[in-house]
């Protein structure tokens, strides 16, 4: 197991270096002079020069790249052009909010999708199955930038049950979590149905029933347990979609997380902050994929020996 873990970690290193390189290159992709672009067309040359020096853009590219990587290792992502504060500390303030939202969305997705998928599989071909899968299809088709405002309109504005902006108690989390977790719930419900149908055809389920195990127990304790492996994997791999979706959801519900910070920083042309946010989301995504990969190896030993 340790060898498998070490191999997965080693394989991740070049990807992380590539991610860092691409994020570094972003600032150099700005058409024209990046410093001029950040300050605007009306900026005086002295200010542009000062910013160029501050960002290190007057140094050779290789030197800039080296100091960027060295800064990353030390956790230094530069300073925000808007606030003058370190990017790392500003991002650190926002991480808990995004983490809270992402976890809540995953919980919503799991709580909705697994029962829905089980019901659809057990009553396959019936009206219940068709209704569950129609619900899942709607969930996949509806973009969260439409679902979010719709939920806010119904439950916030019309019914007045839930707050529609900001971070606070659990009530503030409900609408953003449903909006973000909706699509994932739909994907996982279809996945649960498909994998459970496969498992239900297996002989061990029939053997369990022949031994007198109840239908409910055969489904939940035997078949569902085995079908959870691919479901957990897909849930992990879909975490990237949750992180990207969080950018939109946080904007809709004024949720003070990394996604909102990213969009605000783009508006202010605060490129060091943009770089920091993108790097953090990408590294988190790579990290979650690595954990999912390793977990898959733990859950299914055959994977480790391939």
């Amino acid at each position: 197991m340790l060898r498998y873990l070490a191999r997965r970690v080693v394989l991740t290193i070049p990807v992380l270096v590539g991610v860092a390189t691409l994020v570094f290159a972003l600032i150099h992709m700005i058409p024209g002079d990046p410093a001029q672009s950040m300050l605007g067309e009306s900026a005086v040359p002295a200010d542009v020069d000062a910013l160029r020096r501050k960002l290190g853009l007057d140094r050779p590219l290789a030197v800039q790249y080296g100091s960027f990587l060295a800064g990353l290792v030390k956790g230094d992502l530069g300073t925000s052009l808007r606030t003058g504060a370190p990017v790392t500390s500003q991002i650190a303030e926002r991480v808990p909010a995004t983490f809270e939202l992402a976890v809540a969305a995953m919980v919503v997705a799991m709580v909705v999708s697994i029962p829905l998928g089980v019901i659809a599989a057990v009553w396959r071909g019936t009206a219940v199955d068709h209704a569950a899968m129609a619900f899942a299809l709607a969930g996949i088709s509806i973009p969260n930038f439409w679902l979010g405002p719709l939920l806010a309109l119904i439950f916030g504005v019309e019914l007045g049950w839930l707050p529609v902006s900001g971070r606070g108690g659990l009530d503030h989390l409900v609408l953003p979590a449903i909006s973000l977790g909706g699509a994932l719930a739909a994907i996982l419900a279809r996945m649960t149905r498909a994998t459970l149908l496969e498992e239900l055809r297996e002989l061990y389920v029939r053997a369990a029933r022949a031994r007198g195990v109840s239908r409910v127990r055969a489904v939940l304790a035997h078949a569902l347990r085995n079908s959870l492996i691919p479901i957990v994997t897909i849930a992990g791999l879909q975490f990237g979609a949750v992180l990207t979706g969080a950018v939109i959801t946080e904007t809709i519900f004024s949720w003070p997380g990394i996604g909102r910070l990213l969009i605000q920083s783009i508006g202010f042309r605060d490129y060091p902050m943009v770089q920091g946010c993108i790097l953090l989301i990408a590294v988190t995504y790579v990290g979650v994929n690595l954990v999912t990969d390793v977990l898959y190896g733990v859950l299914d030993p055959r994977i480790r020996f391939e």
Partner: protein
Amino acid sequence: MTRAGAIIVGMAVLLAVVGPFITPFDPSTQQLALRLEGPTPTHWLGLDELGRDVLSRVLTGARISLVVGLVVVCVSATIGIMLGAIAGYFGGRVDEIVSRMIDILLAFPGLLLAIAFVAVLGPSLVNVVLALSIIGWVGYARLVRGQVLRVRELEYVLAARAAGATTGRILLRHLVPAVLPAVSVQATLGMGGAILSEASLSFLGLGVQPPTPSWGRCSATAARICSTRPT
């Protein structure tokens, strides 16, 4: 289910083609006195915050969304097929370089990378197409590379080489046509994804710029005002 899907897609394409010719009003004409008016017999979907006819904007926006989807799929499929076929056919160092590029780009959630590119290039329709194409080719390249690795070992490819066909001819006439069915499936899925990504970027204010109507932009405007003027 297939027929229902075909009907929905067909209607969207039809609206995109004929939409701008049948719009009841100019999508940019403002009637400020009637701003935020609800649906009426004259304005079926009402008017937006600047008094523009929502139905006309939705119909015109359909064309933009579909054109973005089509262009992104064409550009990214062309790049993906080229790089994937070259990587799969030549193998070795070329394959290594292309595969590492794919790995790195796949390490980012797709829309996030598009947001990053648009953030530095500036929000515009052209930059959205560029950004979505830059992230879109990866899926095609990975698919084509895998297919070419399999097909290049088949006997008809060996026969073509024995008959004196050049590498370019083998790639273009023998390998690429063999992978096109798989690519076409990916392209249909990719088109939906590109339309949704464009709408998401426009929703965030990073895509199509005003006054050009797009579905994402219309949704963003509606989302902003729905809490104060729900009807």
